[in-house]
């Protein structure tokens, strides 16, 4: 019996608190994670530039989306100004590496920290207000920061934009997609492991308590103001890192790139992936990065000689994003992560999965 039981899994049974708090729920999940990172290390050797470009995009957007998920999904504070922090990270990193002689490799985390400082400042009103009021306040901060980008010539280069140097380690410049992929992968692994770890820590549990019932959380001794501001800070740190990677990848940061539209896209990533799920942020990002590509593919498939349709491509992509937000919220409000969990549970109990 015992041996049969060990061979046939029929669910996850945790008997200790430690087992419940491990970073990977099962040994299999850990192996899958390690193997997939190892496989990703091989990706630049066998994928072409198009797919590498998509994967790099998924990398830096994914980091920023995880940051947004910490504030929206884990702490329950809606933020409509994430793109502004993403942009701030990009400009800060470019500015630091251009003006102070600090190598780009160190400028990226520094940019993250500086963005975090600004995020903490913006988070101060968030300590007092919540829900809808906070959504509107972050909307205001989006416009104010956007206006700042357009105005601060010394920092962003104004309408001309800012140049960002490629990442270099020991004099080796990583300006090809192949080498830059490793930089992004390095940050993705670190940031996602840190994110998953954060949720196991005291602070992470406090975030979740604030989200689930903030009055009860306060009664239990959780300092609401502190944790609301802290979650804003951490989320801006992630946005800053993602933005810095974005800037050094493109080599050029323009002030027009960080509009409300991008903020909405980040929120869409989080919602489609699944609020309150670390890997959900990644799934949502993959969805959001691939969606425009699929639209483009579809348009070329159905109307490759229809110039009207190709002219409208930009609008079709935007409409697809808006529509997918609405449809996901109506039909799958828990996102892709939830769906994935259901699929896993189905196979775990396979022949008797009811």
């Amino acid at each position, binding site marked *: 019996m015992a041996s049969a039981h060990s061979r046939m899994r029929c669910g996850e049974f945790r008997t200790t608190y430690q087992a419940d708090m491990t970073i990977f729920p099962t040994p299999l999940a850990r192996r899958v994670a390690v193997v997939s990172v190892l496989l990703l290390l091989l990706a630049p050797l066998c994928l072409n530039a198009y797919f590498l470009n998509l994967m790099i995009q998924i990398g830096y957007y994914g980091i920023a989306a995880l940051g947004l998920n910490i504030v*929206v999904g884990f702490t*329950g504070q*809606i933020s*409509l100004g994430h793109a502004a922090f993403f942009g701030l990270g990009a400009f800060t990193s470019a500015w630091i590496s251009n003006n102070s002689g600090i190598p780009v490799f160190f400028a990226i985390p520094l940019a993250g920290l500086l963005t975090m400082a600004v995020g903490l400042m913006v988070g101060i*009103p968030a300590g*007092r*207000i919540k*829900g*809808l*009021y906070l*959504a*509107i*306040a972050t*909307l*205001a*901060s989006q*416009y*104010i920061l956007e*206006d700042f980008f*357009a*105005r601060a010539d010394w920092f962003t280069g104004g309408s001309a934009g800012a140049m960002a140097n490629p990442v270099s380690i020991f004099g080796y410049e990583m300006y090809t997609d192949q080498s830059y992929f490793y930089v992004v992968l390095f940050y993705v692994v670190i940031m996602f492991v840190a994110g998953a770890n954060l949720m196991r820590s005291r602070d992470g549990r406090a975030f979740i308590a604030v989200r689930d019932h903030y*009055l*009860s959380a306060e009664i239990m001794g959780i300092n609401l103001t502190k944790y609301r501001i802290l979650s804003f800070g951490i989320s801006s740190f992630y946005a800053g890192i993602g933005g810095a990677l974005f800037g050094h990848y493109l080599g050029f940061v323009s002030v027009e790139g960080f509009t*409300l*539209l991008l903020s*909405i896209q980040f*929120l*869409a990533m989080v*919602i489609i992936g699944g*609020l309150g799920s670390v890997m959900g942020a990644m799934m949502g990002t993959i969805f959001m990065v691939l969606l425009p590509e699929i639209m483009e593919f579809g348009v070329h498939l159905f109307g490759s000689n229809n110039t009207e349709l190709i002219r*409208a491509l930009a*609008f*079709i992509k*935007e*409409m697809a*994003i*808006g*529509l*997918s*937000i*609405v449809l996901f*919220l*109506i039909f799958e*409000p828990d996102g892709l992560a939830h769906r994935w969990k259901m699929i896993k549970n189905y196979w775990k109990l396979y022949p008797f999965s009811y």
Partner: protein
Amino acid sequence: MKFELLSQLIINGLVVGTLYGVVAMCFVLIYKSTRVVNFAQGEFLLIGAWTCWAMLVKFELPFYVGFPLTLIFMVIFGILLQVLVLRPMIGEPIISVIMVTVGLSMFFQALVSWIFGGYTKAFPEVFSVKTVNIGGLQIESAYIMSLVVSVVIMIAFYFFFKYSRMGLAMRATAFDQQIAQSLGISVKHVFAAAWAISAVVSALAGVVIGMVNGVSSALSFIGIKVFPVVILGGLDSIVGAIVGGLLIGVLENLAEFVDSQWLHFGNMYDIAPFYALVIILMIKPYGLFGTKDIERI
């Protein structure tokens, strides 16, 4: 010279402010009766203005046919939106409800720019535009028309909520949904009516602005400008919406004036309301006339 410019700007501010007030009223109407924060309010203006433009220019209908048709279209549009999209969201957390309207806003904005293009298009002249001299100030007749339309809408709102059956039902629903339902009010109908009225009146404002400034995607930005207005006035106060609209309208013109005379930052017209918004939220988050939420466990 300076004084004249200032008074001109204040008049402009009041005219634009009444329009903000009208749109904010529509926003408050939806928020008060259905508890939905509508980020797609600006798209109502946009769709209304473009529909009317299409009726008048593409189909070459006379104004007195095309305009009522636009309003009928907006009624249907508002009801469909409520029934198809917002009704399934009842009872969902506030983040989801906000995001649905954000998604709708993005969708319709892209759809409208696809159909009508990104350029500003002028309305055919319905009223001959000329300037009127009032007390030494040159005021465009279009401004006077928009002022009159806004004031008429506001008075109509007042009588609607004070005397009409549907208006009273809406107030009852806003007060307490369950009690309203137990008194025989169909909350479903009230919700649909709130969206329909909001869509129609916003479209009306959109057409008025379109006549003055031309129709373009910039109209939807008024839906964003509505947020400083409603936060200043209080989210659930119709009076607050009007007062807030006037204040924000004057404020942005004054900011423009101060900027052009002394500061030279540029772009203050669009950004000043957002600074005001942040300050109001820090000092008085429930606005001038809003009711304070009291939460009990």
